[in-house]
């Protein structure tokens, strides 16, 4: 077996560029010998002396990095801010878009809700890992190569984020938009997929199919407009009276037909109700209609109260924000 010194030198020079190897090897050999001698003179045993000399020189990988000016970090302070910013931007854009896309695509091709949820979660996790991995790889390569200055943009105060102030959180907006899109996706999906099939094997829609002539398109329009209003509200920096009005209109566009149809028992598809009754749920139509009315009215009322309440605080926050930022 080689001596500890030899093993140490080998470990260091393997991590040093070829061109420096001979030089580093010779110098390191002399250095270890000198350090060891000093300890022998101080009265240490040969083994102790060698051991403590190597201990003073420390981890070979670290020493080699010092010698060759190599980075001991995956991503250093030069690139770290850009790296984190890019990750955040990608996570905030790619993930919600991909998630919505997967949900809609799955529902349209006829997967059931549980399946869709599972697929969506798994895909989003994979996507997150992939995003993280590839962005990290690119930045680790940048870190190890002298990138031209233009590759890391100089920070400038004008790039400071200008988030709409006062209760407008991007997360809330995204969640609200996704809810609207899920609603649209459900309205479409229920027509093509169902837990029940008729005698011919075709799915039994949950909602009355004749509603497609008017009311379902109206509700889809209401949901989509609601999503757009939500986005504009985020851009504008929170609630103001016009947005409260717009939001109420799009909400009513969905809730009024829903409540009216449920109250007159013309929302649900009668064959669907028959299947439920056959399964032993005798008051299925009543229960579902009442639930739809209660939930729809509840959501609308809450939205109205919440948006009205926030008009004042959001307006105050906007004023304060624009005062402190005259540009």
């Amino acid at each position, binding site marked *: 077996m080689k001596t500890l010194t030899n093993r140490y030198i080998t470990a260091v020079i393997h991590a040093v560029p070829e061109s420096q190897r001979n030089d580093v090897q*010779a*110098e390191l050999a*002399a250095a270890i010998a*000198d*350090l060891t001698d000093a300890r022998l003179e101080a009265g240490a045993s040969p083994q102790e002396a060698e051991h403590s000399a190597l201990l*003073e*020189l*420390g981890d070979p990988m670290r020493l080699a990095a*010092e010698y060759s000016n190599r980075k001991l970090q995956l991503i250093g302070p030069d690139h770290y801010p850009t790296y984190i910013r890019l990750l955040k931007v990608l996570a905030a854009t790619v993930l919600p878009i991909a998630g919505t896309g997967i949900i809609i695509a799955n529902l349209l091709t006829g997967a059931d809700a549980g399946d869709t949820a599972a697929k969506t979660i798994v895909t989003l996790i994979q996507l997150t890992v992939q995003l993280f991995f590839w962005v990290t790889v690119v930045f680790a390569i940048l870190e190890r190569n002298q990138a031209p200055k233009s590759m890391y943009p100089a920070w400038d105060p004008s790039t400071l984020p200008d988030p709409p102030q006062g209760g407008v959180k991007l997360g809330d907006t995204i969640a609200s938009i996704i809810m609207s899109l899920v609603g649209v996706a459900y309205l479409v999906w229920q027509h093509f997929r169902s837990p029940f099939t008729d005698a011919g094997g075709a799915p039994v829609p949950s909602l009355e199919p004749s509603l497609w002539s008017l009311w379902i398109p109206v509700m889809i329009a209401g949901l989509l407009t609601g999503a757009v209003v939500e986005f504009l509200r985020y851009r504008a920096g929170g609630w103001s009276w016009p947005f409260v009005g717009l939001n109420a209109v799009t909400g009513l566009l969905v809730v009024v037909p829903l409540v009216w149809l449920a109250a007159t028992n013309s929302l649900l598809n009668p064959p669907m109700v028959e299947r439920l009754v056959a399964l032993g749920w005798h008051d299925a139509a009543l229960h579902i209609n009442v639930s739809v009315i209660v939930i729809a009215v509840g959501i609308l009322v809450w939205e109205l109260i919440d948006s009205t309440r926030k008009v004042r605080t959001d307006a105050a926050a906007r004023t304060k924000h624009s005062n402190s930022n005259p540009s």
Partner: protein
Amino acid sequence: MFVMNDEDVLAGHQQELRRGTVVIAALATLKTPGYGYGLLAVLEKSGLSVDANTLYPLLRRLEKQGLLSSSWDTTDSRPRKMYSTSDAGRKLLQQLESEWNSLTQSLNTLRTEDPKNLLKELS
């Protein structure tokens, strides 16, 4: 909150303060040619203890920057790399020394003068 103990705080600040002085010490000492361990021992004796794993790579870096020149001394049974401060190194040393002096002067002024006067001038 996690509080570091006083010794760690002191050691951390001392290390920060000493970091740049090793270059001055090395360039000044190596006006007379010397090898790694010799320099390490000299610095240690004069109260500027440096870790071996900092000094050896530093010498190589200074050599790469042209501030030190080197040659192999094979007269001893143990061949050693001898470093000596180059002309460029001497020039840089002068600049660093004058920087060091002006830092000392500034610090002295700050420490001796009544801070109230300095602050008054500001306002």
